[in-house]
Structure formats: structure tokens, C-alpha cells
């Protein structure tokens, strides 16, 4: 049959292409990985403590440190560009930047404009009590300190029966139930009540379709995601 022959020759062609290409797949349409390796990694950064901090002379934070280590692996020097998320993503979209970091999460609305990496860390905002205090059976009616102007405050207000007490800095609250990031529990001597207000899967953004670069970064993130808790602990949490 005609179809049969066509199918067979197509399959043969596909196999030949794959064999020729070998491990070079995936490749970048715009050669980002090749250009960055041994060259300059242009990274857009926007402030999102503790992932990125821009208060010092040089950017700092967990994601900044990860980016530095990634650049180290590629033998690249990092060129930091500060800006709003919208500005940075717009620059990423036209490949004026190679990477954008700044507390991005997997549910980012930028999916259509940037290639989002796998998540390298998951954090939760949990309701916790001081380590010595008894765990409440139910948080209904319990006064819970929560940082003003955060989504956790809204969730606490709308989705639980706890009494939300909005404060400027939850880490300064003593002897009260508080809503905090789970990675702060040990440092603040708190115990998780099991009530979780929100969950964030942390990601980075790369240019759309630069799949070799994306895959290289993801390999790095998969290999190094175990180092994230230590990097978080090294942050001063303020």
C-alpha cells in the first residue's frame, strides 16, 4: 500500500535524524546555552525576600545564590538587571535577558511569555504555635498573628474561623499563634498546627523555546534543590 511505504520511509527518516542528532537534543533555536557558556549570563532580578534581596551592593538571597552557582557551572559571569517583573519578563520575551528570578511561583501568569522551570522548592504558610504551647484541636476562634498585606492574611480571614491579627512582622510576635513560612518554624521555635494557608512552588523563568538552556538549568536545579533549605537557613529572615 502507498500509505504503508510512506509511513515506513517517514519512520526511517525520523530514526536517522534522531541517530544523527544523538544527545544534542534538545537544541536552542537562538543558541542561548552556547552563548552563555563561558560568556555572560544576563539575569533579571526583582526583589522578593528571602529569594532575592537588593538592599546591599550586590543582589543576594537564595535564588541569587543558585544563579551564581549555575553561572559558575557554565563558566559564565552574571550581569544583573533590576526591574519590575513586567519589565523583566518583557525583556526576557525578546531574549534581552536569559533568566529572570524574584520569588516567581509555578502559578505565575507569565506562562505564555516565558518558559517556566520545574519548581526547585516548595514552601507553605502554616499556622504555628510556640513550641512549648499545646497544639489547639481546632483554630476556630484562636487569635493568629499574620503579616498584613499578604495572601495568607486573606486566606486566614476568609477560609478559616481563626481571628486574624494583622501585624507588620510576624517574626517579632511572641507567645501567640502565628501564620509563618514553614522554613522559619525551627528558627522561631514554633510548631506546625497542621493548618496550611498557602503553598508556593518556586520557579525561575527562561526565554520561550530555548530548550537546551532550559533543560540545562533544570538539570542544575534538580541536582541542587537539596541545598535550598540550607540557603534559606543562611538568610537572616528579616
Amino acid at each position, binding site marked *: 500500500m502507498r500509505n504503508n511505504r510512506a509511513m515506513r520511509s517517514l519512520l526511517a527518516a525520523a530514526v536517522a535524524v534522531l541517530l544523527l*542528532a544523538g544527545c544534542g*537534543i534538545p537544541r536552542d533555536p537562538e543558541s542561548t546555552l552556547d552563548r552563555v557558556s563561558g560568556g555572560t549570563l544576563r539575569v533579571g532580578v526583582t526583589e522578593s525576600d528571602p529569594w532575592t534581596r537588593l538592599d546591599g551592593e550586590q543582589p543576594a538571597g537564595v535564588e541569587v545564590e543558585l544563579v551564581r552557582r549555575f553561572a559558575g557551572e557554565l563558566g559564565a559571569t552574571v550581569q544583573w538587571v533590576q526591574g519590575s517583573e513586567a519589565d523583566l519578563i518583557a525583556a526576557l520575551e525578546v531574549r534581552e535577558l536569559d533568566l529572570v528570578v524574584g520569588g516567581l511561583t509555578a502559578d505565575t501568569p507569565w506562562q505564555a511569555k516565558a518558559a517556566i522551570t520545574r519548581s526547585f522548592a516548595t514552601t507553605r504558610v502554616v499556622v504555628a504555635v510556640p513550641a512549648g504551647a499545646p497544639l489547639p484541636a481546632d483554630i476556630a476562634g484562636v487569635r493568629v498573628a499574620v503579616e498584613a498585606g499578604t495572601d495568607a492574611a486573606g486566606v486566614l480571614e476568609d477560609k478559616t474561623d481563626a481571628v486574624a491579627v494583622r501585624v507588620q512582622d510576624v517574626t517579632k510576635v511572641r507567645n501567640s499563634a502565628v501564620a509563618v513560612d514553614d522554613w522559619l518554624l525551627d528558627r522561631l521555635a514554633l510548631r506546625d498546627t497542621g493548618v496550611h494557608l498557602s503553598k508556593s512552588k518556586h520557579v525561575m523563568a527562561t526565554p520561550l523555546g530555548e530548550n537546551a538552556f532550559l533543560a540545562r538549568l533544570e538539570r542544575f536545579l534538580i541536582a541542587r534543590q537539596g541545598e535550598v533549605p540550607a540557603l534559606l537557613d543562611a538568610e537572616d529572615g528579616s
Partner: protein
Amino acid sequence: VSDEHHELPPDKHRLLVKAVKLEWFSIVYLISAVVLLYFALGSSQAMKAAWVEDILGLTPPIAFLIASRVRRRAPNRKFPYGYHRVTSVAYLCASVALLALGAFILYDSVSKLLKFEHPPIDLVKPIGDEPVWLGWLMLGALAYSTVPQVLLGRLKQPLAKGLHDKVLFADAEMNRADWMTGAAAMAGVVGIGLGLWWADSVAASIISLDIVRDGAGNLKVAVDDLMDKEPTVVDHSRADPLPRRVEHELRALDWVKDAEVRLREQGHVFIGEAFVVPTGDDDLVARIDRANQHLLDLDWRLHELVITPVPEIVRPDPGGQDGA
């Protein structure tokens, strides 16, 4: 599949039982392929097109199975002509769905191509700790959704011809043509792998064009059927010879001066009227009855024929408006 209103002779009935089994198998297999493709979709347009085509591929088997149950029901007061036409209705629905979704994907793919969108495909960790590029899994999923369909199409086609079933025939054709979808989608994914960002959208456009073509072709056939167009053979390549044969048989009778027959296709059987100009009134009722028995035995597909004696026959314009 037993008693009720028999419209099939025993040998055709065996074909039907076989076809029903094949269609059930198709449904189970297609659902598994749809689920597998869903998990490997990623951001590839071509994958999305292949996925939608597989979802739509479910409609002909479902239409066939529903029709094969419903159309055997005996006529009743509410549906005096019986349920044969349920096949045509199912067919119309499936072809409209095919056309609409094909057009949507075509628009989506072409606009992505025009916007120079570069599809990202990243790593996944399917089993264990070793990350794999999702593109490789896409190729595997596409192979699973393609090769068995082509084989299924080959098994269904002779059954469709034997049963004179156009839904089954359309299904077999769609299955047989699936190698093209599979190959195009694979080329798109491999293209992304090779850094050819446009390959994916181009492949998706080709697939969706094929879906649109399928949909438009099937829609035309379904509308023709519902308009009672002249019956055709199962692959629509030419007019079915049965109406002319019935006419010849009638004219050959010694008491018939002239005869004209028009038949409608209802599902896979024919129903219609014969107008005869008798030589005289002698024994006319019994003659008509005998002729009817004889004609219904000519071909299993001739299901119902009303023979009406008329003084003369006024023939319609042979070509008709579209002349096809």
C-alpha cells in the same frame, strides 16, 4: 444483539458482531491513548492537535455503537419510519464536531506561527531520579497512539464494506489516515528538539488541515444523506446500482408497462417507493404483493418498498441542481 427488529441477514449479522467488538476495543484503546497523550502534552501545538484528533476519533465508534443498538428498534407510533436514520444523525454530529475543532486548532497554530512563538519543552522525572526531556516521552506517546490505529483501520474497512455502513467506513478511514497525524506530530516534536521552533506549529497546522478536510468531507456526506441524495456505494465513489436494478426487475414483469424507483438511504438499509404503470387492473393487488416479495429478496439492504400503481410516469430532471 439478537431478536428485535432484524434488518441484517445472518452472515451480515456476524460481521456486525465482529464490528461491535472492534469498536468497543477502539474506544478502550483510544481512551488510554488520550490519557497518555494528555500527560505528555507539554507546550507542543502538534501534540495538542494529535490529542484532539484522538478525542474526536472516539465519536465514530461511539456513534456506531449507539446506532447499532437504536436502529434495530421496531417502528412505533411516534417514530413510524423506525430508527434507521439515527446513524445519519450521529454522523452529522460527529462531522460538525470534527470541523469545528479542526478549524480551532488551525487558527491557534497559524496564529502561534505568525507570532513566532517558540514552544518550550522541559525536563520531567517520570520514574526515579533521572530527569528526561519530555520530548522523548512525547514521541513514545505518539507512537502508542498511532500504530494500533492504523492496524484497527485496516481491520474495520472490510467490515464497513460488507455491512454497507458509512459511519464504520468513515471511522476506518480516519484510523487508516492516522499515520499522517502521528508522523506529522513526531516531526514537530523532533523539530523542537533540533531547535526548529516553527516545526511544531507547522506540523500542527498540517494535522488540523487534515481534521478540517475530514470534517468537511464527512459533513457533506451526512447532509447529502439527510437530504435523501441518490444512494452511493459505501466509499461514496459512485451511485449505488440497486435502485436501477429494482427498476429493471419491475420493468421485466409482464404486467408492468413502465416503472420508476426512488430509494432513500437510511443508515445501511434502503427504503423507498416504486411507481408502476400496469397494463391492466387484473389481479393488481396480488401482483403488486408478489412483486414486492420478489424485490425485497433481491438484496438484504432493500428494507421496505412501497409499490404504487400510477397512470403514467413523469420523470424528474435527471441532472438536478448540483449535477453530482
